[in-house]
C-alpha cells in the first residue's frame, strides 16, 4: 500500500505526536515493510469466523452496589504540580 508523507503526518496528528520531516522520512520505509508483512493475514480464510477480543471466555462481573472508599482528592492530586482549587489544572481548551 502507498504510505505517503501526508498519511504519516495525519496519523501522527491523531496520535498527538509531532514528527519532524526527518522522522517521517525515516518512518515511511519501516512502516511500509511492516504493513506489507501484516497484510499477509489477508490470505487466511476467516469467512464466518467470529473475532476473539480475548483469549478466554470473559464473563460480565457485577458486585454489590455499595460505596467503597476510593482515592482521596488530596491523594489523587498529589502526583502533579498542575492543580487549582482541588481540581486538576489542564492546558487551555478555548
Amino acid at each position, binding site marked *: 500500500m502507498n504510505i505517503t508523507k501526508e498519511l504519516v503526518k495525519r496519523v501522527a496528528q491523531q496520535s498527538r505526536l509531532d514528527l519532524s520531516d526527518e522522522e517521517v522520512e525515516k518512518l515511511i520505509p519501516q*512502516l511500509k*515493510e511492516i504493513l506489507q508483512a501484516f*497484510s499477509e493475514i489477508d490470505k487466511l480464510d476467516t469467512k464466518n469466523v467470529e473475532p476473539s477480543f480475548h*483469549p478466554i471466555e470473559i464473563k460480565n462481573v457485577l458486585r454489590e452496589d455499595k460505596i467503597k472508599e476510593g482515592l482521596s482528592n488530596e491523594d489523587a492530586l498529589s502526583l*502533579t504540580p*498542575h492543580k487549582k482549587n482541588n481540581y486538576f489544572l489542564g492546558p487551555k481548551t478555548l
Partner: protein
Amino acid sequence: MSVIKFVKSVKEGSIDVVKNAEKAVLESKKINSEYNYFNAFDETALAQAMIVDKKVRKGIAGKLAGVIISVKDCICVKGVESTAGSAVLKGYRPLFDAAAVEKCRAEDAIIIGKTAQDEFGFGGFNVNIGNGFKIPLNPLDKSRSCGGSSGGAAGITQKASFPHLAIAESTGGSIVNPAAFCGVVGLCPTYGRVSRYGLIDYANSLDKIGTMAKSCADAGLLLSVISGHDEKDSTSSNNKLQYFEFKNSVKGMKIGIVKEAFGEGVDSRIVDRVSDAIRKFEDKGAETVSVSLPTTFKYGIPTYYILAMCEASTNLAKYCGMRYGAHSELKGMFNQYFSAVRTKNFGAEAKRRILLGTFARMAGYRDAYYIKAAQARTRIIEEYKQAFKQCDVLAAPTMPILPPTFEEISKLTPLQNYMADILTVGPNLAGLPHLSLPCGKINDFSAGLQLIGNHFEELELLEVGNAYEQK
C-alpha cells in the same frame, strides 16, 4: 539455596531475615552498577525485613517469609517510582500496590525494586528502552542482549547469589524470551490467572503477570501466591493455583512436539538440545506425538502485532502530562500541550507502535487489520484446542536464536526484530500458560525448552519441567 528451602530455614530460625536482606540489597546494587537490571530500588527493603523478622519470631510469618522479590517496572509498587521503563512516567510513585505485589507482601516477602524492561514492553531484546534509561546486559556475556521485555527480571534472577524470585510480565513472549536468554526458568500463566490490577498495561487482552526463578518449583511457588480472583480485575479467574507436591514423574504423559518450531530459521544447536530434552522425557516414560500448527506459524506474527499495537495505541493515549508522570509548563492549547509532552517523552519504538496501532484502527483500515487479526486469533486459538486433543503438553524451543550481540541487533530493521517472536506469540495470543527452562549448554548459554499447556494447566507444565530438572 532454593527459595522453598530458604523459607523453611527462616521459619526454623537458622537464617536471619534482616541480615539476609542487607546482603541482598548490597549485592543487587553492586550487580546493578555493572548490568543495569534495576530502574529503581525500594529503599524500604530493610524496614520491610524488620517487620517480617518480628513475625518470624512470633511464628506467624507467611509462605514467602523474608524472600527477596524484584518487580518488573510496569507493575506498581506503592511509593516506589514505577515507569514501565518510559520517560513519560518519570517521577510516578503509585499510591497503591498492584494486586500481585500486595499478595506477596501478605505472605511476608520483601520487595527490593523495579526491574528494567523495554519501554512499556515494546521489544524482545530490551534495547527499546525509554529516553534516559540504561540497557540491561546479558548476565552471561555483557556484549549481548538479556532478552526482553522482562530483561532486568531475568538478569537479576540469573545473577543473584541470594534466594530471589521475580514478578515479570508477558504480552507476546516477554517472560520466556529473557528467561531463555539468561538461562533461568520463566513461567507465563494462563490469561486471567493473575490479576492485572496495578499493571501499567501494554495490550489488555494479551498482558499476563508471571514469575521467574532458578527452578520450576520456585517459579510455581510464587505463582501460587499471586494467582486468584481479584474484584479489581474483572478478567481475573477464580481458579487459584494451589501449591502442590511434585509427583516427579512424566510417565504416561503425552508430549506434543511442535513440528514447525524445529524448522528453518531455528539455530540447529538449539534444535539439538531441545530434541535431547524431549528424548529424556521419552526415557522417563512419556509418550511423544508430532503436532502441526500451520496457521499459528504462518499468521501468528502479523496477528499478534496488529492486535498488540491497536491496543497499545489506545492504552498510551492516557499519557498527556497532566495528572501524573512527566509534565511540562502549561502553555498552548490542549492538543499542543499533550503533543509536546508525548513527543518529548515517548521513545522511537513507542512512537512507531502508536502510529501503526492508530493507523490499523482508523476508518477504512479497521476491518482489514484489526477485525481481521481478531478473526485470525480465533483460528489460532482453535488450532491449539485441536492440538490439545492429541497431547497434554506441547514442547518447542523458546527462542530460535542464542542471545544476539548489541552490534547484531543494531543492524536489524523493526520488522526483523518482530520476527524473533515467532515461537512465543502463539501461546500468548491464545492465552495459554507457557514455561521456559534451560535445557543444555551451548557455549556460555543455555537453549530454552518451551512447554505450553492448555488453559489453567500450569501444574502440568511445572510437573514436566520439574521432572527434567531432576535428571
